[in-house]
């Protein structure tokens, strides 16, 4: 895990890493990958991947309209809103 990989991964994750912390972060992530590298030693043959412990199909519920939180309630948690909309920074390319 080199510093350029850390920068690339951070950008994919929309995280900003400080220049002076990159080396430390790279070392920490490398230590975690060291633990995780045991995976390579496991004989997996044709074992199918397991994504969830849930067995069988997940049931569907009727596609019915139900009362939910109101727009007003939902916008109360928004950092910035105006006239019933979420406000984001102006983007001009």
């Amino acid at each position, binding site marked *: 895990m080199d510093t350029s990989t850390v920068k690339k991964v951070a950008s994919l*994750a929309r995280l900003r890493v400080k220049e002076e912390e990159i080396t430390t972060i790279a070392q920490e992530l490398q230590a975690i990958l060291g633990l*995780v590298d045991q995976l390579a030693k496991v004989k997996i043959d044709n074992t199918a991947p397991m*994504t969830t412990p849930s067995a069988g199909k997940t049931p569907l519920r009727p596609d019915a309209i139900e009362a939910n939180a109101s727009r007003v309630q939902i916008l109360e948690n928004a950092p910035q809103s105006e006239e019933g909309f979420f406000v984001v920074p102006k983007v001009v390319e």
Partner: protein
Amino acid sequence: MHSDLSSFSATAGLQELRNGSFTPSEWLESFVARIEACGELNLYISDTTETARESATQALSRYQDKTARPLEGLPIAIKDIFCTKAIRTTAGSKFLSNFVPPYESTVTARLQEAGAIVLGKTNLDEFAMGSSTEHSAFGATHNPWSHPDKPLVPGGSSGGSAAAVAARAAPVALGTDTGGSVRQPASFCGVMGFKPTYGRLSRHGVIAYASSLDQPGIFARSLADVELLYRTAAGHDPLDSTSAVCSVDAASSPLPNLSGVKIGVPREYHTKDLDGEIESVWQQGAETLRQLGAEVEEISLPHTEAALAAYYVIAPAEASSNLARYDGVRYGLRAEGDHKSLDAMYEASRSLGFGKEVQRRILIGTYVLSAGYYDAYYNRARRVRALVAQDFAKAFERVDYVLAPATPSAAFPLGAEATADPTWMYQQDIFTVPVSLAGLPALSLPAQLNKAGLPLGLQLIAPAFGERELFAAAALFNEALDFKAVPPGLVASGANR
């Protein structure tokens, strides 16, 4: 008027409410007083005393007009990761420090519909990522078993809930367990911690960490309390697509002894890091089960070490995906300033709002899911997960339950982790993570105190959906373990009072 109502278990206290020995308000005030007395432990992020007092008054009227519900007037503590309508829910994160959910989680809704009263929202590692409750934007929680000059961690991530139940600052509490976040703090705090089968308790309204592993769990000081809360909260929920479609178990029926019951002791759990005192408590636990009539035999769970590696790929991968929603647009924190682009605003807000451990796990998760690494890490981890589940399935062809330590050590000092390699804390999860990957139910029971006077716990692990039988067997085991110790400064009054 009793002097120490805070030491009543949920079941015993509810019986006294029905008998009219004391009122819901009197019971509630005993916990309000304990929460205040335990202020330095930093158990709760938010308390809800005012609304709890109103609810307690209403509960009394229900007892008087004979319309009391099964949990009427029972105070409960809730890990601050369950969304509670109109009550701030932070997940221990600066990002959500002002978030007030417009809806209620299914589990907390069901308990309150049965009459439970919310005491407050307990502290946790940010977004449930951690094993010490030090990774909280609201400060660390201290273990009630520590001496004031040498604070210990309560475990994590549900450390506030575990410590609150141990300190009599709540009779029972809700937590969540992704890789051991209920069982490990229960063990560190000398209380019971139960993680049901994946799918038993709804995840609706539980702030997501790793969705294929997250499962609500219960802390209590009596097994009857664990079962009471579990049975009240369980049952299919159409709002959680992974909620199991099956009816709630009938109450467990007492067993005369454990004759005919087979217990497996996994060979691979004798790890090099296992503390000698825990090894001996484990052996004594096996002997206790033998004396109760069970047959104890060695079993093999060959993918135990690999399970830890698989967990630390799968959990961060799911976390990186789940936590992508925190963008500073719809709720939560937005960094101040003149952002040049939407991406710049996302980056600034996420870097400001997330703590170090959360950012570390998002980075690892993003890395293992990124092009070129997906097969070597994420896909391989999912295959190893299948092997871990197969290990248990094979074991359960031979035995009914697995007996294991809950943790490789007793509670560690506050700050110990900061000086260690980040993987040191991950290694603490070796006995809890395999169960989570396989989605099995497991109960951590306090077993003994070590020489330093700290509690040590043992886990009974059952096959999927085997809760009812597990409770019956655990009742006998728990009675034989006879753990009655209480944290320093509290007066022992019998575990099942």
